[in-house]
């Protein structure tokens, strides 16, 4: 249902994405792994139109759009079915937790305030920060902020949620709770693309692991296939650097 085709992107002379394609089924949880600079984040940013790709297209449901030539109207249309969870949370600093979650409902989707509030409160309850609903983001810990970030995404009922290194900015002791929450999102059956460095998360949650390096998809498959018995040399090399040795030399 989500088809990413031939995405290309360069920053000046640096070719960050060289023709990347991915086909993602309904409810799939795709985890993208790869060393820094491999283009994972750029891929997410291109398919959410935060970065303008130099080429490629995106199909969501029965609609297709050019990533290079999409009009404002098309972009808005596609973004209505998408949500994004940022590495740095990016909660609206001038709004309370509750307002952060309501913003996309009331302002963007024109849902009546009362209904929006009920939905937002429900989402905050679900992510476990309902007790902070009137606090401002600066008053929250990183873990709490990311929970709100996830609530803000989930409340929109998107078809796809894009997670861009959602735990990279967190203190180590908070990573676990946020990953648990993301697993909970996965269980709801929402299609997810997760860029992360958390291999164990990939192993546990992913329906498919995509390994990227140098702007191309090097290899993709089930977590077992990629994490335990990778075929490509580059994947093996990457895993040997990030995994304890006994984990994939089984």
């Amino acid at each position: 249902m989500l088809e990413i085709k031939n995405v290309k992107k360069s920053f000046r002379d640096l070719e960050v994405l060289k023709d990347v394609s991915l086909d993602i089924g309904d409810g799939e949880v795709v985890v993208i792994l790869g060393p820094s600079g491999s283009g994972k984040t750029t891929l997410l940013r291109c398919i959410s139109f935060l970065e303008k790709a130099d080429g490629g297209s995106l199909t969501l449901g029965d609609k297709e759009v050019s990533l290079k030539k999409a009009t404002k109207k098309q972009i808005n249309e596609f973004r209505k079915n998408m949500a994004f969870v940022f590495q740095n949370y990016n909660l609206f600093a001038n709004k309370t937790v509750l307002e952060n979650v309501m913003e996309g409902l009331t302002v963007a989707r024109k849902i009546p305030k009362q209904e929006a509030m009920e939905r937002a409160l429900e989402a905050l309850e679900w992510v476990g920060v309902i007790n902070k609903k009137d606090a401002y983001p600066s008053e929250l810990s990183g873990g709490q902020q990311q929970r709100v970030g996830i609530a803000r995404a989930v409340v929109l009922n998107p078809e796809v949620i894009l997670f861009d290194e959602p735990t990279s900015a967190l203190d180590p002791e908070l990573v676990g709770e946020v990953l648990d929450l993301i697993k909970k999102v996965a269980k709801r059956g929402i299609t997810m693309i997760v860029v992360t460095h958390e291999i164990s998360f990939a192993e546990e949650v992913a329906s498919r692991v995509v390994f990227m390096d140098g702007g191309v998809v090097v290899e993709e498959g089930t977590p077992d296939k990629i994490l335990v018995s990778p075929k490509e040399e580059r994947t093996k090399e990457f895993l040997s650097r990030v995994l304890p040795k006994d984990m994939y030399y089984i």
Partner: protein
Amino acid sequence: MLDTKTMVDNLIDIAAYLPVTIKLTIGALLIAIPFSILFAAAEIKRIPVITRLVRLYLSIIKGTPVLLQMFMIYALIPFWLNTFFTSTGKNINIYDIDPIWYGYIAISLSATAFLTEAVRSSILSVDKGQKEAGYMVGLSKWQVYKEIILPQALTVALPIFGNVIVDVIKSTSLAFTMSVTEVMGRAKIIGGMTTRYLEMYIDAFFVYVIFIFFVEIMIKYIEKSVTRYKSAR
């Protein structure tokens, strides 16, 4: 020595011209605020020719003395108007124009320059992630600015606005060189009449100190009520 009697007697007379100072300040700001927003927008959006012109304006205004700008305004505008009125055959005496109008224009020139910088830097100070998050929850560009960027920029800009307002108040004291009688001008006039310049300057000094003190309290109060979310924690 200091003639305290003359000093005290004329304090009220000088303070009575505070409304002119306030009028100059507000008038100049009313011109400067819309222009500075437009100029800042032009700078941020990088519109080919217009951005260049705005930058040229900023460097000229910031690179020349306010007093010189005032003299030039006071000499040039009447000259232009006169040429214009004569050529169009209108019978308007430019000396009937209240010089306070030249004051508004002259003071707003530098106020615009400084406010442009304040607006531009405060908008750019908002993290770009805020904008992206706005887009990703479905907000339009305008909604992102209205809901997210501008409220945050305002809290950054307010202290700078405060400084600019105080600077504008102080620069109104130069308006007496354009025959606008405000606090400073009045002090100079009475000084000339009584030959007690120092006393009159001391009077003006107190008028400014007290007035600016109240303005600063007001600004702090406004700042506090707008920036509640940053003071958290």
